[in-house]
Structures are given as C-alpha cells and as structure tokens.
C-alpha cells in the first residue's frame, strides 16, 4: 500500500536534519502507528506522504503513485488530518463538511455512512462556527472532513495530543471501526500507551527509526530482565538505586520504579538485600513484562 524508501529531509540548507534515511512499508488495511516525541520527525514524514512536502531524497509510493510526480492522484486517495486544527474557523460545522466534499467532487450524502458514527456526535452543533467548537468537537469534525471523500488511506497527525484520557480512548475506538471498513490508517502519537492499539508500530526519535514491528514483537526485542520496585520512600528509592553496582536504568513509572541491571544474573533477592541494607521498608519487587515505553527508552538510550 505504502512504500517509503530512503527518505531524507533537512531544513535550513541541511543544518536541521528532520528525517534520515527512512524505510517503511505499510500494508493495505493496516492500522500503523508512528510513535515518538515532539521533534522526532513525525509531521515531516506525514507531510511527505500526503504530497505537501518534497523530500531531499528517496521515494514514496502509495498504491504505486509517486508522491512527488503523481501528487494529484495522491491527494484523491489520501485523507489527512494535520496536528494543528486546519479547517475554516469562520465556516459552520456543516459548511466545512460540504466544502470538503465538493472540493473532492463528491457529496456528504454519498459517503455519509462512513462518517455517520462520528458526525452524529457533532450534528447538534452543525450551525456553529468551527472556530467556536471545543477541542474534542474540532477533532471529530476534522476527522469527518478527512474522511468525506472516502480515502484509501487516512493519515492522522497526533490526533490525541493534549486530549484527556477518556476522549483518547473514544478516539481509538473510532479508528478501530474505520479499520474494519477497510481503510488503511497511519497515525502518529507521542503517547506510548497507544502503541498497543496498533497492528504495527515504528518508534521514531531524532529523525531515525529505532524499531518497526508488531507491538508484541517490539516488546520481545527488549533483552533485559525488567523489575518493578516499590518501597515506602520512592524518592529515596530512586536515589539509592542509582548507587546499585550493576545499574543499567532506573526510571519512575507511576507508582513503581522500573529497573534493569547490566548483569544478567541480578535477581529479586539481590535487589531486596541491597534495599534492606539501605533501610527501605515495605519492599515490593516483581519481574515484569516491559511496556512500549520501556522499549522506547531502552532503544533510544542505545542509539545515543
């Protein structure tokens, strides 16, 4: 469906490297996640895919159309929702939707079934100006407008950034539904916990891909024992773990510290002994399966 080969993009005459030699391929019907922090290069890559930005070098093809040469075709088959709200603020909800439908030579009626579930939620406000909508409603309108021409592939740039946990959950439920309609979806996010909701993900940082695979396979690439540790004094625990002889990493993860050792033989008993010697009480230690966030940090560290 999408073939990305050796894409490199720089800004300011080569001074700023946005993307370095990116290779990816995305299958038809896949829900593919591009996971990485701000400044990783996610938006640059998506703009190249949607023909809005020309790469310095490399080739991108979507359904065999070249994103540079065949940009007109590309725009017909892609739906793009930019990270920044880009609809017409001085048009109403309804007017925006009609406008995007007519630009693509279709009508709202023709493809209504595709957007129905999303659009009914904002329909009570259809006369309201887009600029006056709340964040969650803007997001739903933008998604409706990106879908109204029934694209083959949907490109969503950080649709859930700054969105609360409940709305994020609902948004991912909408994506799952669209996927079941056969639309290929490419979505970027800085939230690592959203990775597990994708079929495959690419972890990206500083314009380079750290890893591409199914979320479960990425987790299997994590080649160290990971311990979750909690004691009655978490601040002191962090300070003390930094003094642990074979420390590899110690990161706060909510109510526990995630700890890895450079020594393969480090076990719970050894850590417990160390913590007892440092006067910790209520010690809890458990070997756990890493999350995508653990993997991201480990890969990012090795990259440096």
């Amino acid at each position, binding site marked *: 469906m999408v073939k990305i080969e050796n894409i490199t993009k720089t800004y300011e005459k080569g001074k700023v490297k946005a993307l370095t030699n990116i290779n990816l391929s995305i299958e038809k019907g896949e829900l593919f996640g591009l996971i990485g*922090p701000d400044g990783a290069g996610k938006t640059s890559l998506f703009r190249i895919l949607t023909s809005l930005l020309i790469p310095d070098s490399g080739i991108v093809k979507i359904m065999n159309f070249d994103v540079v040469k065949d940009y007109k075709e590309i725009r017909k088959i892609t739906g793009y929702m930019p990270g920044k709200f880009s609809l017409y603020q001085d048009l109403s909800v309804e007017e925006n939707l009609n406008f995007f439908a007519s630009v693509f030579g279709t009508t709202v009626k023709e493809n209504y079934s595709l957007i129905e579930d999303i659009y009914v939620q904002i329909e009570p406000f259809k006369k309201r100006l887009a600029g006056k909508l709340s964040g969650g409603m803007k997001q739903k309108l933008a998604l409706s407008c990106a879908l109204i021409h029934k694209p083959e592939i949907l490109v969503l740039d950080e649709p859930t950034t700054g969105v609360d946990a409940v709305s994020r959950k609902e948004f991912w439920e909408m994506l799952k539904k669209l996927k079941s309609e056969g639309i290929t979806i490419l979505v970027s996010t800085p939230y690592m916990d959203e990775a597990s909701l994708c079929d495959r993900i690419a972890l990206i940082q500083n314009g380079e891909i750290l890893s591409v695979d199914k979320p479960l396979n990425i987790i299997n690439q994590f080649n160290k024992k990971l311990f979750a540790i909690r004691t009655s004094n978490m601040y002191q625990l962090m300070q003390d773990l930094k003094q642990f002889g074979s420390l590899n990493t110690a990161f706060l993860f909510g109510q526990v510290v995630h700890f890895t050792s450079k020594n393969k033989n480090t076990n719970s008993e050894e850590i417990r002994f160390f913590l007892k010697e440092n006067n910790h009480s209520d010690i809890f230690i458990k070997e756990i399966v890493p999350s995508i966030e653990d993997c991201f940090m480990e890969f990012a560290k090795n990259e440096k």
Partner: protein
Amino acid sequence: MEKVIIVKNLVKKFEDFVANDNLTFDVYKGEIFGFLGANGAGKTTAMKILCALSQPTSGELNVAGFDVYTQQDKIKANIGYMSQRFSLYEDLTVFENIQFYAGIYGLSNKIIKERAENLIKKLEMVEMKNKLVSSLPLGWRQKLSFSIAIIHKPQIVFLDEPTGGVDPITRRQFWDLIYDAANDGITIFVTTHYMDEAEYCNRVSIMVDGRIEALDTPQNLKKQFNAEDMNEVFIQLARKSKNKE
C-alpha cells in the same frame, strides 16, 4: 501543616456558564498537588484565578498568604508560572532568558549571575548558554522554563501540562526537577494528561464539569475506586461528565 493555597466556595461564571462550581480545597506547603480533569472541566479557569490573572465571581481565596481580590501583585511576586508552551523568548539565548525573567522579579545583578550559573550547571546546559532558545529541543526548553519559573524562589509554582509531547526520558528528568524543587520547600501545583505522572503527586484532585469530584492521595483514590492505577480512577470519574460532546 501550613496551607499555602486556601480556596473556599470558588465560583466562576462566564455569562450563564459555570466554569468553576463551588470549589473548596487547600494545598499544603511543599506538597506536589496534581490538578486533573478532562478537557473543558474548568482546570485552566481555576488556575488563572489562583495565579491572579482572572477574578473569581465569588468565593474566598488566599494564595501564598495573600488575598486574590486585593493583593494580586503580591501573589504574582510570590508564585511562579509555567504555561504549556512558548513561555520563553525564542529569539533570546538561554542566558538572556534567565537574566530577563530574574530581572522582572527584581533580583539584583549579583544574585542573577549567581543563580544563572548554578542553574545552567544543574541542567548541564553550559555549552548551550549562549544559544538561542529556539534551537533547543522541546524537552530542554521545558526543563529550562521550569527552572526559570522558580528562579525567584517562589512559594508556589504552577505548571500547566509541562510534559505534553516530551520524550519519555526527558519527561522523567523533568519530574526529577519537580521533586528537587518540592524538597526545597516549593509547593508544586501541576496539571497533566499523563496518568502515570498523577502517581507522582502527594495529592490529586480530579475535576468533572466544574466541580472537584475527588481529592486525596493517589493511594487512597485507588482504594476508594477499587482501581489498579490512576488511569482507571480518572476514567471512572470523567465518564460521569454531563457535558459529553
């Protein structure tokens, strides 16, 4: 425990919309207080009032020992504030930004120089001292703007989603800075959408539709809602919202 924020029956209305509906809570000196809520729950409105940037419709409020109706300038001098983004001047260097903000808070040149040097060393930014802020990665900028927000050693610092979009390693380094500041006795008032960060707070309040629906330590909240983690607590509460879009 000493109270640094006292809020009694805070109400804020915009015409007939009630953004803050009778909020009552206290924040203690030196604690990390997480101020959570869904988008549109009324967090920013309340935070602006606490920072003396907006007036309440009614209620009694005392921040850092001063009254929000009559002593706004005193409040501003005794708090620090870090907005979500763009809180630094991108066309000034790292050092110039520190100098500028410290100057606004009336610190003497001698103290400014001393604190700027300590800060730059602590953040390991010695090589970046004379670089424009616009050239720094987001994570570095956020760490710098936090440190600048507390350069005048305020009693309280307000942080509005300080870690949004920041990479996971830098996000944790940022929390190290928060812990250090709290250890120095600075009260931290912070909003975030990352629920793992809610676990790092001493106490957390959760707003739904303009009201505080829960306020306790993360541990007690999890017990109260029979939840595995704060994410679950948050989802249970936010689902009750009537303002569903």
